[in-house]
């Protein structure tokens, strides 16, 4: 089923779920509130974004107005900052995925083993996911990556090397490190759940057949994790496409546009430059990007709901 945020199969009251009243219970009034407000929440702002994207509209300059046709889009698409932001977005999503899924798989295998104090160690390992983004960003920025007083600067200096100015020289990489740290526990938690659902008899059988740890990993565990990994990738992608707070707190998108992603560009355009039309056009692009991923995710969920 290819229903995404833009294609709703069941608008509001016409749903048949409600009409089909079994056992004399009318389900329509029960389901309707959720459906109606979610429908409004989805469709009204989206329609407005779409509408604004075809308008000249500046929050500070009331003389600017009227139908713009595709001008916001042509302006946006020929603007190098959009492409910088797009490349940064893709770069960020890609590397965070590589780090979290790669390390997450290894850690999941590790935490699936039986060792002393495993459950406490696991609690520590998933902790970053529950830290609010602004706190994680500031802790990394001030206490770890700070070029003068940060812990990393201390380590490099002790080795006789110059301190690295993380946010000055490698702004996007620094943001990637922070975001990857936040999302690693998510990958770990889900992959661990998936590994634990692996049939222990199957593992035992493989072991009986003389499978070593490596062939065990590549031929038993990894294929079993395939689905879970794809789910992790899709869910993370949807959230990572709109990473915002971490950039807002650490680099403000800079220097220049070096760490500006699509979400931050839209914020800059809309609430710093007050260009509603241009920002809306960028918003539409962001929605389309997310929906491409969402289609696959919804399909994957649909397979599992069938019961």
């Amino acid at each position, binding site marked *: *089923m290819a229903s995404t*945020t833009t294609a*709703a*199969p069941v608008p509001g009251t016409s749903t*048949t*779920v*409600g009409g*089909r009243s*079994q*056992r004399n219970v009318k389900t329509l009034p*029960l*389901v309707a*509130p*959720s459906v109606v*407000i*979610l429908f409004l*929440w989805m469709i*009204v*702002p989206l329609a*407005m974004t779409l509408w604004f994207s075809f308008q000249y509209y500046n929050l500070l300059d009331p003389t600017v107005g009227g139908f713009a046709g595709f001008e916001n889009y042509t302006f946006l698409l020929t603007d190098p900052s959009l492409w910088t932001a797009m490349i940064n977005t893709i770069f960020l999503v890609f590397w965070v995925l590589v780090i979290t899924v790669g390390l997450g798989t290894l850690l999941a295998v590790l935490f699936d*083993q*039986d*060792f*002393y104090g495993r459950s406490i*160690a*696991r609690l520590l*390992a*998933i*902790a970053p*996911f*529950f*830290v*609010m983004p*602004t706190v994680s960003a*500031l*802790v990394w920025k001030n206490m770890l990556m700070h070029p003068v*007083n940060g812990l990393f600067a*201390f380590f490099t200096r002790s080795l006789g090397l110059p301190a690295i100015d993380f946010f000055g020289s490698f702004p996007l990489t620094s943001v990637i490190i922070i975001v990857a*740290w936040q999302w690693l526990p998510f990958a770990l938690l*889900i992959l661990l*759940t*998936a590994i634990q659902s692996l049939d222990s008899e199957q593992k035992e059988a493989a072991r009986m057949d003389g499978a070593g740890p490596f062939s065990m990993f590549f031929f038993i565990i990894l294929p079993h994790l395939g689905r879970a990994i794809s789910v992790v990738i899709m869910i993370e992608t*949807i959230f990572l496409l*709109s990473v*915002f707070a971490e950039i807002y707190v650490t680099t403000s998108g800079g220097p220049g546009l070096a760490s500006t992603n699509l*979400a931050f560009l*839209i*914020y800059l355009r809309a*609430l710093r430059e007050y260009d*509603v039309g241009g*920002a809306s056009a960028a918003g*539409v692009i*962001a929605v389309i990007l*997310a929906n491409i991923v*969402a289609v696959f995710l919804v399909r*994957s*969920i*649909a397979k599992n*709901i*069938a019961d």
Partner: protein
Amino acid sequence: MHPKTRERLVLTVVGWLAAGLIFFPIFWMILTSFKTEVEAVATPPQLFFTPTLENYITVRERADYVHFAINSIVISVGATLLATLIAVPAAYAMAFFPGKRTKDLLLWMLSTKMMPAVGVLIPIYLLFRDTGAIDTRWGLIVVYTLMNLPIVVWMLYTFFKEVPKDILEAGRMDGAKPKQEVWMLLLPLSLPGIASTALLSIILCWNEAFWSLNLTTSEAAPLTTFIASFSAPEGLFWAKLSAASTIAIAPILVFGWMSQRQLVRGLTFGAVK
């Protein structure tokens, strides 16, 4: 030594090392919160020092910190209650009286969660500006309710499905009306599920940092916004910032640890079991 035991010891060392590395930034922050401001920026970084509670006292005495903390609590709990209230009837109907299109409906609800917030930032901002909802608690409560509603419906639905139908059936035989059936049977039976759903919703609201940064400034600003305001001043405030941050994340960390199992269910929409 027995090879099995040795293997276990090696695993223990590796496992704790990995966990320690991941946890380190949080540990370092907590440690810094017990230092004086001078110790916090000292070179070399100090691992051993006389701990002080000074920062916590300062943070607690600042009335505005309490103000932001109360905002966080009111907004997360308010949005969670509201979402649960709207979601329970829907989840009940879908779990016990499924129709042909229940599955489609559920999927559609989940798909609204996949809309990137930035895509609707401008209309929401303008609507908020025009209705005077900017920097109000109720404005943020409405947004968070809508934001979490699909996940809450979904989780309640999966928990309700686990409640044996026979029990509700029996209740109905005894003449329970649907309302009584929900209040007297379903809700008590699925209380653990409802609790963990609420917990997850509170965690998500508490840590949300896109809408809070864009829609609040001071009056209704939750802790995420407050902490972000520390991004400007350099040095000097690290110890106090650490104390403020530690208090801000502590309750959620505990909630998160309590609900880690249900978390997987809620965040993957059941795609991973």
